[in-house]
């Protein structure tokens, strides 16, 4: 697929890198918001080849990582019930709750299934009317339209044995929270191109104005990310702020309005707790009152379950960009993908897992 290879082309990447080295005159701190971008940066070694003065910090945009511990515990409690078929995206299965993970529940006899789409879970509900089918609706605005569609369809068909355990988060609220934090060091943001594809970027314009920061809508391939960094550094060097779109092959200012319609039909914005960051106002979705019968936390009365985080895990600081994974004393010793202390070590998009997998032995190399 030329579409993909073009954005991995080392010759094009090298040209952007050369420009980046020419325009950079001082140190800058830039956050890539999305875990997919973090993964790509570490996997391709982008952090090793950009000018040494540009520090990339990794943002909270990894849905698995920011899902609060008690939500995992609620999922475990529901999944262990004999009448339940618990459906989830694959990477939630290894995330440790307080005592176990979904894989363990599965091995203990729970009916836990990996699905690739929430609509598949609706299909399972249709085929198993005597069972309760629950889908773990985790993710940012990117996965929200399909999850909304699943509930919408289930209601229209009159399916009563389908529900969602909703742990949806949204980016703008988190961006505001990061920007207002007194310890914030980030000077520019690479916004998550997939989220912008759905939601557009008009929501980010008032944020960029208010906090006077550059926000660059950025894709996920090496060339995309380098273009995003180049745009952000150019704006910083010239003292400009605002929102710029460097992922125009996928993102329009208004986004995908049909997807937004289905989201708003099914979900309301709400305050949400983020793992490692606490409760952030207006930063997540909850099912609207008319869809309450499809809310698994109500249906199975697990809303009261609470949990305490490991005090040895610094993922909260990592998610806010205040610490890098390899600055954690537990990194690679006590905490590894086989025995993760926190979610950032579990998901392939978690910053800790990305560091562990691709750069655990790598020293920073000078640009040649």
């Amino acid at each position, binding site marked *: *697929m030329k579409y*993909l*290879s073009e954005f*991995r*082309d*080392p010759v094009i*990447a*090298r040209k952007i*890198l050369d420009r980046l080295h020419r325009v950079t005159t001082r140190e800058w701190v830039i956050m890539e918001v999305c875990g*997919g971008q973090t993964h790509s940066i*570490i*996997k*391709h*070694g*982008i*952090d*090793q*080849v950009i000018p040494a003065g540009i520090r990339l910090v990794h943002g909270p945009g990894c*849905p*698995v990582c920011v899902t609060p511990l008690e939500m995992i515990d609620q999922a475990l409690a529901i999944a262990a019930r004999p009448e339940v078929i618990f459906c989830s*995206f*694959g*990477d*939630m*299965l*290894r995330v440790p709750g307080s005592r176990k993970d979904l894989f363990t529940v599965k091995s203990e006899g729970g009916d836990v299934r*990996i*699905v*690739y*789409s929430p*609509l*598949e879970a609706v*299909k399972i509900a249709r085929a198993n009317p005597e069972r309760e089918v629950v889908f773990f609706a*985790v*993710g*940012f605005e*990117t*996965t929200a339209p399909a999850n909304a569609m699943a509930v919408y369809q289930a209601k229209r068909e009159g399916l009563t044995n389908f529900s969602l355990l909703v742990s949806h988060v949204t980016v703008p609220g988190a961006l505001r929270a990061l920007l207002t934090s007194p310890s914030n060091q980030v000077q520019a943001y690479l916004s998550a191109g*997939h989220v912008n594809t759905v939601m557009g970027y008009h929501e980010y314009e008032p944020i960029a104005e208010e906090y006077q920061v550059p926000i660059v809508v950025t894709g996920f391939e*090496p060339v995309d990310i380098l273009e995003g960094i180049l745009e952000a550094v150019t704006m910083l060097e010239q003292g400009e702020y605002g929102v710029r779109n460097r992922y125009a092959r996928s993102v329009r200012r208004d986004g995908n309005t049909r997807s937004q319609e289905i989201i708003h039909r099914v979900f309301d914005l709400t305050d949400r707790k983020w793992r490692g960051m606490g409760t952030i106002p207006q930063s997540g979705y909850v099912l609207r009152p008319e869809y309450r019968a499809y809310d698994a936390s109500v249906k199975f009365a697990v809303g009261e379950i609470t949990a305490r985080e490991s005090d040895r895990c610094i993922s909260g600081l990592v998610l806010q960009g205040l610490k890098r994974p390899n600055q954690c004393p537990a990194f690679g010793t006590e905490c*590894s*993908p*086989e025995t993760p202390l926190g979610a950032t070590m579990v*998901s*392939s*998009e978690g910053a800790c897992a990305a560091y*562990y*997998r*691709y*750069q*655990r*032995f*790598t020293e920073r*190399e000078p640009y*040649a």
Partner: protein
Amino acid sequence: MSHDLLDKFFLPRFENDILGELGDQARLNIDGARLAFSTDSFVVDPIFFPGGNIGDLAVNGTVNDLAVGGAVPLYLSAGFIIEEGFPMEDLHRILLSMEQTMHRAGVMVVTGDTKVVNKGSADKIFINTTGIGRLPEEVDLSPAHIRPGDKVLLSGSIGDHGIAILSGREGFALENPVQTDSAPLHGLVQTLLEGAPGQIRVMRDPTRGGVATSLNEFAQAANKAIRIDGKTLPVQPAVESACEILGLDPLYVANEGKLLAIVAPESADAVLALMRGHEYGKEAAIIGEVLDEETARVSLRTGLGAETIIDMLPGEQLPRIC
């Protein structure tokens, strides 16, 4: 995880020198005859997938485990565990493709067993195959022979089988389904061994865990660092985009008809030409080399010129959320 099980439970109980080599096949010497011996169980789900099914996989899998040690596969056993109520037409389809694959590979099933178990005690059908092959006198392949400067050769594109399996699963439809690469490799292996005698250090068919896992196994067994070049890795575009969608790395996705070989540097080009001349090696490439470092580590030079680690995975790759 399964490495842990092996080390903690199985090896201490079954300990002996032959098992201790931990190759894809056991090497036996019976009254002067050198034999290779290997077994594998097949529990793939779905049992039918684009380009193949559990039957041809069961034949090719064991044939290849023998072949990569340099053996000429001769005889197979086949054991079937079948769930009550399994459709006869499906069984027939599976056996037909086993028959065809046996002919193609030049092996015979000479003993077998069938058990039918209660519904729910097995998932449709499980097949075990065990094979015996003749190991030519002069062939001695082992990761212990790996030397700094050796080249890493790969017979073709990576990840085809794993993606074919995924696309065969319910609810995951690719527009252009990728076909499995399932194929018997002993013909290709014999071509290389005869065409470049003494030049091949070790070979493997990178099945579960993909090329990344096999390379790590080489690196650990030889205590050498191996570096591959991302630009030279053959990946089909359809596999690359499916991996992109699912958040998988093709380096870790299973193959069933690919050969990974470590070759003496002076013969690398000649072996590459031999591979490319064979029907199962047309897209072969030199993908990396063994470094002069006594560290068991595999790294990748990315297109940007950065260097990253290619690690063993703690478990199966899990598709990501977004």
